[in-house]
């Protein structure tokens, strides 16, 4: 069985693999890497915004996880723990760089693209609109504060529940919904701003 990230779901729990890794079982740790690498990378990439940088940070995340495994509380779920490390690592990587990273959309990296929504492919108008919006969102998302990017990714990409998101971000469960709302509003505002700016440019060039 595959999950949404194309990762194989097997019967051994993440938590069991974690405690095996702690006992020095490198194969168990390798399995954990394989299970989580795409999700961790997606999270890191969304926050960091650059492919190579994100890959480096992702690698650091797994090294940190390996070093800090002894701190992991086996009675809790493993996924939020690793996502928490990944979120913190990404945000501090950004702060280290101290500059705004702009996504480069012309980068032609192979992507996970799947034909997952047929209606967008059959209706040319919808497909065009969606493509446009995809670009808008990708550009806008990197203009969001990093904690908004994190919460959006945790909710919409990784499909975590509010309690898990709260644990990862170290905030109250009640505040998760608030933060998501604010993040979406902020994203919205940026998208509209982008459109406005482009509209003005179009007007100027028309004149």
């Amino acid at each position: 069985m595959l999950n949404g990230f194309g990762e194989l779901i097997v019967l051994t729990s993440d938590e069991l693999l974690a405690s095996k890794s702690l006992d020095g079982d490198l194969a168990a740790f390798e399995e954990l890497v394989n299970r989580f690498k795409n999700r961790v990378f997606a999270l890191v990439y969304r926050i960091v915004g650059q492919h190579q940088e994100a890959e480096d940070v992702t690698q650091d995340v797994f090294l940190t996880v390996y070093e800090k495994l002894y701190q992991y509380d086996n009675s809790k779920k493993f996924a939020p723990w690793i996502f928490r490390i990944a979120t913190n690592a990404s945000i501090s990587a950004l702060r280290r760089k101290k500059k705004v990273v702009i996504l480069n959309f012309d980068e032609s990296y192979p992507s996970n693209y799947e034909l997952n929504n047929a209606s967008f492919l059959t209706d040319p108008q919808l497909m065009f609109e969606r493509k446009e919006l995809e670009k808008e969102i990708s550009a806008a998302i990197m203009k969001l504060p990093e904690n908004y990017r994190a919460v959006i990714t945790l909710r919409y990409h990784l499909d975590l529940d509010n309690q898990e998101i709260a644990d990862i971000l170290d905030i109250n469960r009640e505040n998760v919904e608030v933060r998501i709302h604010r993040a979406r509003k902020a994203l919205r505002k940026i998208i509209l701003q982008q459109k406005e700016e482009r509209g003005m440019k179009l007007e100027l060039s028309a004149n």
Partner: protein
Amino acid sequence: MNCQQIDEYLFAYCDEKLSPELRSLIDEHLDSCETCQNMVRMAKMESQILADTTDIPLLSEDFTSQVMHSIFDQPSTPAGASSAGLLARLSQYRLYIGGTAAAAVILLVLYLPGFIPLNTNLDSSKLADRSITGESAPEQVADIPLPDVKTLETDYGNSASVVQDDCLADKISTPTPPASSADNTAEEKQKLSSEIDNSKDSHTTSAVKQNDQYYTLTLPEGSELIDQDLNESELDLLSLSPSNLPTEYRLEKIINTSYNAITYVYSNTVNNDALEITVALAYNADITQQSLAGRSGEGTDQKYVRSGDALLNTANTSISYQGHSFEINLKAAMPLDKLQELANSIKFQEALPDELID
């Protein structure tokens, strides 16, 4: 219901989190407002796109093996305390020291009047007796003759050539005794010289023997990590490891940040904050004298490094050891006064860090 109100409920509406009453009110408005219809359509599409991972690039195919290799390359065990892990960490430590810091080690040894043999069982209380503090700095410098630095500088940074030079190698194996050790009045110096006197005749052999023991402790069987060109007994002399730190600090890693500096990275096991302590050898004699003249009697100075959510403060201090000045730099996200307190309380011992001694 006007457009502004719709905007407030937009995401809740799209996520179907609203009461039927509110919902029908919004539907009513939407029927007559094309702008809001577009907003809703856009918000729904947005949610889909945000949930979509298709724009995420693929990880390198060999990502997993890269991670696993890094783990092999930087051995540290998650359990932290197992004997295999300790050996791995010690050999890692040895590599760091033996690598680019080798030149600094050799330079230091050439300046030394004699070894201070380490206690056989690395008893930490005895090591603490030999802790070097900033206060004793000026006297030591005045008494210890500085060797010809120019000769050394030529080969500085190239450990192999320094060691292979016959003349220099002689100096390493038979260190010059201190010129005026008998005249010393300073308490610290007396202690040092008495130790040197006691061991003057036999210290070389005892140090080597010491180090035989040391290596059987630190290196895994069959390991070829030892830099053969290095005089092995020198290692301990550069290892001015921080000690006297509060117990919640755990050594995470040791990095040599440049060829004459070593950074000890600690983590606070209580709040997970990092603390970096950099020990840099001020190798140039002039600079050493200068900085000592400028700094003698002076405590520490701090400065503000970065603003933002995490305030990283730094505190600097310097110590003198065997005629050399070492710049100590502490960096951590903690209040300046706390950091200064820490900087003042820190001691250095010529040994492996506490954490690496079983």
